[in-house]
């Protein structure tokens, strides 16, 4: 694997790690592990922990996939641009 490919893959893995950390935090963290603590706060008529478990986690999942796609598309573009300049030189 070339260094360019390696750098692309490492960057992609870092991005995935970040997104999956947030993915776990909103669902397993806010929705299950800390639900009782968060239930002391409220969001309108929802207890906060309950809201994360039945609403918030799902909104966060959608946002995370769009965020990941946006960032990884940037990575793809940079990778292609670097490849083209090097091949052209």
């Amino acid at each position, binding site marked *: 694997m070339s260094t360019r490919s390696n750098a692309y893959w490492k960057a992609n893995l870092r991005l995935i790690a970040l997104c999956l950390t947030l993915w776990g935090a909103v669902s397993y963290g806010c929705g299950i592990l800390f639900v009782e603590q968060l239930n002391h706060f409220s969001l309108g008529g929802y207890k906060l922990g309950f809201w994360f478990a039945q609403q918030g986690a*799902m909104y966060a999942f959608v946002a995370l996939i769009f965020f990941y796609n946006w960032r990884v598309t940037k990575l793809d573009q940079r990778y292609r641009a670097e490849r083209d300049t090097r091949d052209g030189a």
Partner: protein
Amino acid sequence: MSLQDLTAVVVGFTFVVYIGIAFWARANSTSEFYIAGKHVPPVANGMATAADWMSAASFISMAGLIAFLGYEGSMYLMGWTGGYVLLAMLLAPYLRKFGKFTVPEFIGERYDSDLARFVAALCLIFISFTYVAGQMRGVGIVFSRFLEVKIEVGLAVGMCIVFIYAVLGGMKGITYTQVAQYCVLIFAYTVPAVFISMQLTGNPVPQLALGSTMADGSGYLLLKLDQVLMDLGFNAYTHPFNDSSMINMLAITFALMAGTAGLPHVIVRFFTVPRVEDARRSAAWALVFIALLYTVAPAVGGLARLNLIATVNGPDGTGTAYETMPNWFRTWENSGLIAWHDHNHDGKIQHAAGRAFAGGKPVFDRDARGESGRRLVTNPGPGDVAEGAPFANEVYVDRDIMVLANPEIAGLPDWVIALIAAGGIAAALSTAAGLLLVISVAVSHDILKSTFAKNLSDRQELTAGRIAAAVSIAIAGYLGSNPPAFVAQVVAFAFGLAASSLFPVILLGIFSTRMNKWGAVAGMLTGLIFTMGYIIYFKGVFIAPMAENVPANWFLGISPEGIGTVGMVLNLTVALTVSQFTAPPPAKIRALVERIRLPEA
């Protein structure tokens, strides 16, 4: 027009649309039959994926589960949506880059092993048949309840429709029919939810209504629901960990997520788009379309529970006389999904905590009728008043009717009820078609072509695929009308097996260049045997259960529904260990893995 005629017209109209689409999108080659020729735009694919994924269980059963579980229902909500994050980041783009037709094909090539491909194909067929039997049953229930025909007749009609568009159109026909089915099912699900949200809170957006104040000025809806339930001796709706421990919830949620990401009929949808970026984009759109229904479901569940209690116990909370109950009570009683036994002989129906019938479910005394036409049961419980309840519980309400009966309970117009029937059928048919397709492709492409008849021409393979689809539909129909006693048990199987076998093996195939066939096969077998063994041990599929299915007997307090999580960890551990002590995969495999990781054309 009567409700029944109206329902027939609405359902009939949707069928005409599905068949019209099937003729328009016929498949002419194996590529079109298997993966729609890779021409599906990502938003349309997202919509088709959503319809494919949301089954009769999502549409008919989930809100009912939430209504009765309260907070713990969240494990289905998060579990069945969170898997798409895994799909979008860990699987879909790389499998699309691999660029072939099926999941077993990827496993076979990545691990350079026809045996691995064959085992994966068998897993896939088993998982998919488990699922499809439930879908056909769902179609039958909707038909028999709303059109008052025999379940068998409903099944036969459903089978014909699926036959026409799956056998003719293959993946291409199914994809565009699923787009139409998504529109039908989301409309059918949201319209009654909006009506009921308006009635109870004055806020038309269900996601907000659940967190709003009651329209009658009695404060926040969820607080009221908690209070009403506690007054009847139930646990509070929003209170966590009543029926399920924290560790069990974590395990079930994870097993559902990993299982979702490993389900072959979902993965294969990402093979149908033109480019790798489109696979990621369609995963994102799929989740948007799924979340539209899944964020409404908790509102449907909570509001339905409140409505049900208010209707049954009446405005003064002392019960409603059987004669004055609205019509839906009797129609569902006729179909056996609602039952009543007048424990205190006051002629009124009362609902509270506790079991109305010995063993939980009612056993009807055939068609015997008592006073004012009530159905008689042979197993009334002792009629004890549960702790904290004001009176004994006298009603059994099957969870599966909460969505279907919801519009009737809320007194909504007939066309909304007809819509629900069409939506339930759309959800079941779209999932059934997707599953039948992956079964037929596994048979014709992964088993027939790769093992038994290697020089099959494209035409012959297409014919074999169509025959396999037709045979699978016949088997599915048979399973739907004669459900084996264990159908309900094996649902845990589908997700457990996908999570503990297919998901880790695909994941390692992409993210580890060192993983070889010995590691993969050893891991798959460990995950599979452990998970199957655990489920059979407690649930007894084919044989009697060997231990009582209670938390005290469970490993680490994890129920059979969540054991796929442990199976997955075992799979990964064994696979990584074995691969360290055996030869690394050949150079061509490492080149393959490096190729699918990079965004090059």
